């Protein structure tokens, strides 16, 4: 056990501080090899992607007629695509967009879902009824279908990634809200909430200090799942041509190249890298999620 | 409770010798039941008491060979039922014994019944497992059994699901299931702990009645000394996986010998007397991992502990006929042995 020595002036005695449940979870997580490897991979991909402009100087939009569809070489690690653009560079930039969309959607969805779910769950009654009706309403729109329809509506008018993120997020938070609500409801049943009220804590404090920390683990796990799902949604939409605008590189857009038969069969270097990166990224996120779930599992806390 | 003295002379129905059951925790095996021996005579009700976690359930599961696969195993000792060595039997043969010769009921009537099958199904399954009986006959028998355990409207209850019954009724169903094949031995693992006193009284009453009518032996596991006093002939007191005291019920309550037993009896508030301060046992039962390897396991909590208690492991000895105690206080020979050891 890592010992934290506390010698503040108040006590003047050396006290062995216990690990908080979060610290315990962190330690357990750090010991999970699969999760750590996944985390390492994800970090690498993210860092490379977000530093893409500093790593390569190539203009990703420039079409190079002279160097189209080149096989991988020392100059172009993953070859070039049919527009003569370096696949590796595009992979990095694509990761930027795909991860950005994934993260933004996840953040929005989780924030909004948690907010709605927490309010509904904590206050109950009419607030709950109204919010949940609204959530049900949103949940009735099948995500893929409506993102496609909405994209057809908005694209060109506002254009691009922000709209996509907004559309996905607006349609996506319902599940999280429901989950958080039910979790809050069950957590609310615990006597420590009653105890907090009985010792005179205000509702805001009860939510912030007692309820949220205890549902946070659920939310975090849900966030990882959402993150993976959102990356899939983005790439799937882009693959179908309803996602990120074609001129912006994203993993889905890069993969869409495989819809051309010659690329699919004869130029695997154009689509295999994004496909593999995508699959491994999602795998990693899933493993990280599993890891977090295990680490936060209260059964193993004791 | 019938004639108690008769029992002594008969050959035992169940004989447990040096039973050791261990669990794997973090790659190491720890004994949850340690060197337990006892006998159950026909028609005898034997009570097992002890704090939570002292190995009562593990012991009974060992007898039934129902330990969780992989993480729990019998390390040592033998269990003889009617002369048959149970731990030599394979799964199939054991299945023939379970439910038929030895039956068991559990603490949690709420979760011990499968929620998706009707009461009738679950009861008759027991019959089908052991007898070649037609569905119709089984149903008749089931209704009869339900009636026997005091459930009103048994014809209706057979077709109901567990969630439609109250806790007391479920425990009755469990009992009906256990006695369906008229076993010779019934192991009841805290059958009333989850129930209210009034219902507990009903269940205990029922068990006693069945014991006499069916000529069963019962191993009654409980942590309630009151229940033991009312229902048992013979008592085993367990602590940390070991039997620390064993004798007939009257002796035990009149002259408990082991400090643990004594404290236990003084720590419960009683209806019939007024006590200002209750005795209490300081500390808690050590967990399996932190169990002392040597010496008396109760030593850290024992008000009468001596230095020797830490180094010398006491044995279960008869301090008086039929009264076994596992404590150095009652061992006369320890001093010499201790000398020898040094």
């Amino acid at each position, binding site marked *: 056990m890592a010992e934290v020595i506390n010698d503040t002036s108040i006590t003047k005695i050396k006290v062995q501080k216990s690990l908080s449940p979060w610290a315990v979870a962190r330690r357990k997580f750090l010991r999970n090899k699969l999760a750590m490897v996944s985390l390492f991979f994800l970090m690498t991909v993210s860092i490379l992607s977000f530093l893409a402009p500093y790593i390569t100087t190539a203009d990703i939009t420039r079409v190079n007629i002279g160097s189209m569809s080149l096989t991988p070489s020392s100059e172009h690690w993953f070859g070039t695509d049919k527009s003569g653009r370096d696949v590796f560079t595009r992979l990095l930039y694509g990761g930027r967009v795909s991860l950005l969309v994934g993260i933004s959607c996840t953040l929005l969805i989780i924030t909004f879902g948690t907010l709605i779910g927490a309010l509904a769950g904590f206050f109950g009654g009419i607030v709950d009824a109204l919010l949940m009706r609204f959530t*049900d*309403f949103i949940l*009735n*729109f*099948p*995500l*893929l*279908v*409506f993102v*496609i*329809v909405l994209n*057809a*509506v908005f694209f*060109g*008018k506002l254009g691009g990634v922000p709209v996509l993120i907004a559309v996905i997020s607006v349609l996506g938070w319902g599940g999280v809200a429901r989950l958080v609500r039910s979790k809050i409801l069950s957590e609310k049943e615990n006597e420590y909430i009653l105890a907090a009220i009985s010792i005179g804590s205000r509702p805001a404090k009860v939510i912030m200090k007692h309820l949220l920390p205890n549902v946070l683990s659920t939310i975090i796990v849900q966030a990882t799942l959402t993150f*993976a799902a959102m990356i*899939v949604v983005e*790439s*799937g939409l882009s*693959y*179908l041509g*309803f996602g990120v605008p074609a001129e912006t590189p994203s993993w889905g857009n890069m*993969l869409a190249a*495989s819809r051309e038969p010659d690329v*699919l*069969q004869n130029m695997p270097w154009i689509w295999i890298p994004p496909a593999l990166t*995508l*699959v491994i990224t*999602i*795998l990693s996120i*899933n493993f990280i999620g599993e890891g977090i779930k295990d680490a936060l599992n209260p059964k193993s806390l004791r | 409770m019938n004639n108690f003295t008769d029992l002594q002379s008969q050959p035992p129905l169940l004989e447990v010798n040096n039973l050791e059951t261990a669990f794997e925790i973090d790659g190491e095996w720890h004994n949850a039941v340690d060197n337990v021996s006892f006998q159950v005579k026909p028609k005898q009700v034997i009570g097992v008491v002890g704090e939570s976690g002292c190995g009562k359930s593990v012991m009974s599961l060992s007898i*039934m060979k*129902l330990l*969780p696969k992989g993480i729990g195993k019998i390390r040592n000792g033998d269990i003889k039922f009617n002369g048959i060595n149970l731990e030599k039997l394979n799964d199939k043969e054991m*299945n023939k*014994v*379970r*439910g*038929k010769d030895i*039956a068991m009921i*559990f603490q*949690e009537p709420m*979760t*011990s*019944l*499968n*929620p*998706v*099958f*009707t009461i009738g199904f*679950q009861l008759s*399954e*027991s019959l089908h*497992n*052991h007898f070649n009986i037609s569905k119709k006959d089984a149903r008749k028998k089931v209704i009869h059994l339900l009636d026997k355990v005091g459930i009103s409207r048994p014809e209706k209850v057979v077709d109901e*699901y567990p*969630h439609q019954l109250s806790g007391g009724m479920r425990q009755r169903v*469990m009992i009906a*299931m*256990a006695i369906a094949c008229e076993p010779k031995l019934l192991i009841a693992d805290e059958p009333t702990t989850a129930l209210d006193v009034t219902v507990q009284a009903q269940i205990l009453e029922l068990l006693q009645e069945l014991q006499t009518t069916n000529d069963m032996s019962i191993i009654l596991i409980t942590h309630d000394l009151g229940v033991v006093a009312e229902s048992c002939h013979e008592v085993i007191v367990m602590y940390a996986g070991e039997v620390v005291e064993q004798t007939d019920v009257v002796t035990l309550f009149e002259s408990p010998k082991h400090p643990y037993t004594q404290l236990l009896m003084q720590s419960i508030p009683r209806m019939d007397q007024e006590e200002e301060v209750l005795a209490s046992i300081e500390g808690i039962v050590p967990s399996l991992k932190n169990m002392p390897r040597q010496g008396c396991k109760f030593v850290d909590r024992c008000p009468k502990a001596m230095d020797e208690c830490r180094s010398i492991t006491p044995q279960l000895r008869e301090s008086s006929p039929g009264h076994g105690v596992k404590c150095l206080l009652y061992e006369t020979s320890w001093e010499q042995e201790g000398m020898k050891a040094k």
Partner: protein
Amino acid sequence: MLKYTLRRILGMIPMLLLISIVVFSLALSMPGDPFGGEIDPNNTDPQYIEEMREKAGLNDPVHVQYGRWISNFMQGDFGESTRYKMPVAELIGERMPNTLFLGITSLVITYILAFVMGMYAGRKPYTTADNLIGGVNYLGLAVPSYIAGVFAIYFFSFKLGWFPFSGSVDITLQNGSFEYYLSRLHHVFLPAIVLGALGTASYTQFLRNDIIESSRKDYVRTARAKGTPETKIYNKHILRNSIIPLITFLGFDIVTLISGAIITEAIFTYPGIGQLFLDSINNRDYPVMMTLTMMFSFLVLFGNMIADLLYGIVDPRIRVD
């Protein structure tokens, strides 16, 4: 039960109306209309297009258009496809069987695979086979269906030639003959597997975990104490409990399958609802698009209801009368 069902159905109506308003306003705010697009001057002229716009009522005020649409909709008249020039209902009716067939096959495959793998892994957890199944599952969860589809075509159709890569049936076969159905099955197999991959993976995982959990339940111990043989315990006592949530997933599956079909059908050129939907979006075929969007939303509602009802039917604990 009947009363409950009826109440549930009635409760769906206001929701559907709200959805219809959303769907309609979406269609309205879409850029372009079905009469725009690439125009072939040899076939059409601007006047004709204007005439058609007028005729289709695209020049009427919004609320009039909505009123007309919704009242027709309620009467089962979904309008006429501007692309296929036939009633939408008929068009959907033509494609529906394909998607249904795909969906049902996918479900059957999903459930069979999930059962076999999940049961096995759950019974023998932490063995090599279990880890293998687990690995396959993780892949199933991580590989998006369009990647899986592309790979599947690449290997199983082109490289190995085991399965056809497009269509729903070999046209040369006599309708209704045995070979005909065999051919349909042959055609649907690959897309069905791809469509069901995600479900298979998550159900297997679910079943495995549930079985492991159930096998530690008190009632399993009770069954053992009765002398019930191990196989019967797994196949009856545990399975029955694990199946309950799985069956209720069926309701939600309807939705997953339909929206999953959009991608899968596109990749396998399988003429079903999903393909029709993409087509209608790409061609601004409003009547089809709106009807399908409504249908999908309805299916979500319906699926949730089915899930609820099924839950009530299969789980005796919450059986409603």
